[in-house]
């Protein structure tokens, strides 16, 4: 069973008068419970691939299926629904909502999903404790360190048990110690909760945690190493 599947995906950007190839016929299958790292030099296409898999960006051709359902032909509203219920995002720059507390940021997705308040509170308390932020539930992002903010972002991404978590350079702004803690958290999520993780990164340390490593260049997959298979 595949968590996400891309079939011959092409994406071309306009840059001035020039066409820039973002993805050039990418086909990829990530099984449920997989832990995949996408690596490439800047402009290699890893962030574009994450955005396409997350329904954030449109394709020019090809197909993308999430949890068996094709998403590349869905409307804006339908894509929002898929992102809300199937996909968790962790962005490079933390991307928390500054006017909400850590708990409210974590509860954001659940609240949009319509989860009752008591259930939201129980799950947010649990998940914040799990990412090592017990006692900081009522702090706003401005009063937290970069590592703490990124852990809130991770908690938000996983709290509603999405089929896939897509993380774009999640350790880029963290020191090595905090980055290691975050990766250990990802490993635990993957191993104990069966969460499918797809992480785009430059970071060798992050790649060391992945079960499968995919290298991209100029919008193409050029290497696919599955440590578990080997």
């Amino acid at each position, binding site marked *: 069973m595949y968590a996400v599947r891309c079939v011959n995906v092409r994406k071309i950007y306009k840059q001035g008068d020039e066409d820039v190839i973002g993805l050039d016929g990418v086909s990829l299958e990530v099984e449920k419970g997989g832990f995949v790292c996408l690596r490439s030099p800047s402009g290699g296409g890893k962030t574009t691939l994450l955005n396409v898999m997350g329904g954030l960006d449109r394709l020019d051709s090809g197909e993308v299926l999430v949890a068996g359902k094709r998403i590349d032909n869905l409307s804006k509203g339908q894509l929002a629904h898929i992102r809300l219920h199937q996909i968790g995002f962790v962005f490079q720059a933390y991307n928390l909502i500054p006017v909400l507390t850590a708990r409210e940021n974590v509860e954001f997705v659940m*609240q949009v999903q*319509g989860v009752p308040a008591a259930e939201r509170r129980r799950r947010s308390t649990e998940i914040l404790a799990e990412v090592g932020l017990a006692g900081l539930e009522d702090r706003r992002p401005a009063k937290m360190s970069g590592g703490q903010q990124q852990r809130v972002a991770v908690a938000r991404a996983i709290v509603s048990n999405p089929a896939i978590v897509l993380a774009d350079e999640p350790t880029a702004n963290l020191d090595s110690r905090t980055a290691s803690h975050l990766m250990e958290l990802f490993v635990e999520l993957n191993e104990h909760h069966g969460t499918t993780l797809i992480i785009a990164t430059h970071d060798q340390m992050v790649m060391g945690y992945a079960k499968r490593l995919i290298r991209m260049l100029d919008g193409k997959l050029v290497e696919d190493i599955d440590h578990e298979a080997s």
Partner: protein
Amino acid sequence: MGEIAIGLRLAWRNLWRNPRRTVITLAVVVVGVWGMIFMIAVMRGMVDGMLFDGIRSLPGHVQIHNPSFRDDPTINNLLPTPNNNLAAALNDLGVVAWSARVRVPAVIMSERNSRGVTLIGIDPAAEAPLSFVADDMAEGRFLEGVEDVGLILGRRLVDRLGTEVGKRVVVMTQDPDNEIADRGFRIVGVYEAQVASTEESYAFVGRGTLQSMLGIGDQVSEIAVLGADYRDVEALYQRIDAAVGDGAEVLPWYELNRYLSSMLGVMDGFVLVWIVVIFLALSFGLVNTLIMAVFERVREIGLMMALGMKPAIILGQIIVESLILLGIGLLIGDILAWATVQPLRGGIDLSVVSDGMEMMGVGNVLTPSLRASDVVLATVVVLVLGIFASLFPAVCASRYHPVEAITKD
């Protein structure tokens, strides 16, 4: 529901993210709403004053005439004194006062000068609650009965004639046989009206005295009726019209004085135009604030969309921010306008510009009139137009592409 709840929470918190900007915008809304409502109250007060003075200057709310009187307002077109049926109708509920009068054009001659006036024969007891003359007595005495042989003149007319209380004048007019009817009267009182031109126009005598002088028996020229509210005379008019039948013409004040009724219509239009003009000025501040608020949180909006919030909720969030701002501004502005108008209920003395006020037919005291309907109208217009004004930034926000918005610097 959850989506709406988080949208409302975000709208409220985002509003206070930059308190200084929000307070400045709020101040703009408050001052705009206050100015809007206060000016409407002043204008309403001015028109009310014009109408009040106009109606007190004899027309009343409804008048009954001989059907030919309006075309030929002479002594030949009279009415009989009200019969029992009409008197019963006039004494019915809804009529505050009524008065039967004789009205003829006349010339008054003093030892120094002569002037043309409208000579009115009145029943002083019936006239007192209906028109200005009893209230505005400034010197001497008011008439004491229908057979009183004294004459009441306006201050300006007394000055023009070079006469004074206690002196005699000759009043000359025409009787129904087109013969000159004249008589000497002693001036017993002088009135000072709100509008000085009135003082030159009307002279008052006892009705019976004038009827005897003209030889018209107990006939009268008009019956003026005063109801409870000049804006609500339709029912009174219909009732009197039914009681009078076909023998006489019944007209409400807005038919008798087209100028006053058109002023009322102009005022209603002016109120709406004034609200819209103030709102346009106010909306620039509002839209500017909302656009700034949207542009400085492009990334957050993109993030919320990436996390699955629907564009419609983003749009609603911006509109709610606008509504909260307008709602608070309207509340404070309304209270402030009320608090400003309350101490002025006794009227604003404008005697320093009395000539200008008189040109507009308004007295020297202007009493602002704050009406619930005007406050509701202003509130509804500001809220509805506010939603339209906030649509532009709201639609901009809801159309962001999540990927582009998240990566925006």
